[in-house]
């Protein structure tokens, strides 16, 4: 019982937001490294974002949307 409650919490098991960063990056001809540099994060963070393994902060989400000249809800989908 205790393990059932604690384990998902410890392993951070939660649903992540889906996104279309990979598609938009391909459209804009940007590498992960270039996008990371433009929004001020590490390349690994872009990798985790594209794999839907990390929910970005609102600021990072807006920065990414600004780079792709798109609206935030066009890139990030709450499914």
């Amino acid at each position, binding site marked *: 019982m205790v393990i059932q409650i604690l384990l998902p919490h410890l392993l951070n098991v939660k649903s992540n937001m889906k996104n279309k960063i990979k598609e938009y990056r391909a459209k804009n001809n940007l590498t992960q490294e270039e996008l990371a*540099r433009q929004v*001020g*994060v*590490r390349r*690994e*963070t872009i990798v*985790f974002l594209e794999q839907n393994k*990390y929910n*970005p902060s609102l600021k990072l989400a807006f920065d990414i949307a600004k780079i792709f000249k798109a609206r935030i809800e066009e890139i990030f989908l709450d499914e």
Partner: protein
Amino acid sequence: MNKKQYTICRLAIIIILSFTISYSMQIKNYILPITALIGSVFILFYLRKKVDIIIADERDYVLAGDAARYTLTSYSFLAVIFSFILYSLQDINPYFYTIALVLNYSVCFLLILYSLIFKFYNNIASLDKKKKYINFVIYFFIVLLIILFGLRLFSGEDNWVCQNGKWVKHGNPDFAAPLIECKK
């Protein structure tokens, strides 16, 4: 400076610092390691500013926050459990009582410090620059007072003092005289 150079520099500083600390312990010089530690922090901070790529971003900070919280929780639990085990074994070795006491106080100190730092960051979010500085000074002095209180608590006021080859009570120590030979 690129990331590889920074990593090499950081590693070199850590090795030099470890060597300095262990050597200082051998020669019983306690000023040298503190100076070396403070110096290393400043050098690493300076080098970090010189790196042209991002070393840590928001994801690292989120992970660091989680890791710090779980570290604090696990340490508190383990320290309390071990302190009770040590309390129960104090008849075997009287030093166990002192170690248990230190563990308990360290948990209290960590939790108080955590609450203060949490409250500080919670408060300053809505403040302007001037008020942030005032808040920082207030919290800094509160932490300083807690540290001074802690040092006073652990100072040798109630302790055993080595006098003319015998351990003599100073104040009212609540533990037995040290087992090592008194040579003064």
